[in-house]
């Protein structure tokens, strides 16, 4: 097939993608979100144990997430901001992974992660409306329906139900990740989306620990049809704890022989001005994949990557 015929055949999916993005944007606009654009090129991406940034020449990197810049805006007192942006993660390639993918990220000041869960309901409903999927549809042999009752499980509940054990710290991370992928994720989000919440504290990333139960972090993931769509949390606002977590990640990456990036000092500086807020990132390509009943992410983007790092 020629490039022209491949791209022509992809048109219906790209049209749906456009309608979905417009609907997500309109929903957030109605909720009073300010859409912002923050840098794609950065000197210091957020240190993450399992995410490799793509070097961008000189001493820069392509962002793996717009999180640090958006939180700097929140620290300056912005109440509700959102952003559609490409993000880049080296080596992530598969049926549901594209090393350059589209994130919708949004933040709410004075809210915790439960407010974001409500946003997810509104956004997914808006997306289904734009895609003509409000009455449900069949995807990969399953019926999906945004209007059915949403599943809500804690990580502990999901693991004891589907994997037969309760994760707690100190966490056997290998066992946790394996069972998550093989036993838990495939069960989540049929027919309606599922909210999987309250991760073990060691899996908190940039989330704050729960004031009710410090063994868990106020973090949740949104799943639909076994696909991870979004990751949100009540943000950690303690600069000292944040710095310790970053330094621990950098130490562990060094120990494993992984490339390390500089500490994001301006971000850590701004954290002392950040008041309680919550933020979340949603994978736009994956949402469109589900809505278009596509089984590969390449079916909903115009150009698959030619260079896979």
């Amino acid at each position, binding site marked *: 097939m020629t490039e022209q015929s491949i791209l022509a055949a992809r048109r219906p999916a790209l049209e749906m993608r456009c309608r979905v993005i417009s609907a997500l944007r309109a929903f957030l606009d109605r909720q009073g979100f300010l859409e912002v654009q923050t840098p794609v090129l950065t000197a210091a991406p957020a240190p*993450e*144990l*399992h*995410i490799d940034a793509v070097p961008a020449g000189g001493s820069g990197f392509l962002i793996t997430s717009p999180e640090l810049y958006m939180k700097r805006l929140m620290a300056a007192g912005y109440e509700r901001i959102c952003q559609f942006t490409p993000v880049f993660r080296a*080596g*992530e*390639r*598969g*049926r*549901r*992974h594209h090393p350059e993918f589209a994130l919708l990220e949004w933040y709410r000041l004075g809210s915790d992660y439960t407010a974001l869960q409500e946003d997810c309901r509104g956004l997914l409903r808006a997306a289904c409306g734009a895609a003509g999927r409000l009455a449900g549809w069949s995807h990969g042999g399953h019926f999906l329906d945004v209007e059915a009752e949403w599943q809500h499980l804690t990580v502990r509940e999901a693991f004891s139900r589907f994997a037969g054990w309760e994760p707690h710290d100190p966490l056997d*991370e*290998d066992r*946790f*990740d*394996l069972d*998550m*992928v*093989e036993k838990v*994720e495939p069960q989540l989000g049929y027919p309606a989306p599922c909210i999987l919440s309250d*991760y073990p504290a060691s*899996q908190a*990333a940039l989330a704050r620990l729960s004031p009710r139960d410090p063994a868990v972090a106020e973090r949740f*993931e949104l799943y639909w049809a076994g696909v*991870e769509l979004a*990751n949100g949390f009540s943000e950690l606002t303690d600069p000292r704890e944040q710095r310790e977590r970053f330094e621990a990640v950098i130490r562990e990456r060094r120990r*494993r022989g992984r490339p390390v990036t500089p500490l994001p000092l301006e971000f850590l500086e701004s954290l002392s001005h950040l008041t309680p807020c919550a933020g979340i990132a949603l994978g736009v390509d994956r949402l469109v994949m589900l809505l278009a009943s596509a089984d590969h992410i390449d079916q909903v983007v115009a150009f698959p990557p030619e260079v896979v790092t």
Partner: protein
Amino acid sequence: MGSTLTAGELRKGLKLEIDGDPYLIVDFEFSKPGKGQALYRCRLRNMINGTQFDRTYRSGDKFTAADLEEQEMQFLYRQGDAFHFMNNTTYEQYELSQDQVGDAVNFLTENLAVSSLLYQGRPIGITLPNFVELRVVQADPGIKGDTAAGATKPVTMETGYVVQVPLFIEEGELLKLDTRTGNYVERVKS
């Protein structure tokens, strides 16, 4: 010994050596749960006995590429369940079982050139040329006047293989068959 591979290099179609046997990755999925580590989910098929299993690998895992080699051979003869082949350049002879030959048995005639996959020097299967020529050994006469487009009848080839052909094909004719589909292609003018 095959070369060493990292998990990041795994993909569908790759052949690995596991516990001394060659395996083909028949299905592959990259996974990354939440903020967790990259996982590589594979469905592997044993290239000798056909058994399959699923296994999930992690980034740090290392693999050995299966030491496989392709050789040109010709089919010599069949003796019961044993099929005898000979390497065209070394004249070395190899024996394959009926299981290893599989459906290729339908198209094997004396001196047919095939390519054989060897694992650590032992043949584990053969690949036929895309097209072979076989003689019809049994065919019922076509019914006169039946000119319906696409009408076919079964005939038996010299290997015992039965194939659907157009009505005009007669006993003793040489036919070209596609070994990938098993279908009749055309009559060979002799």
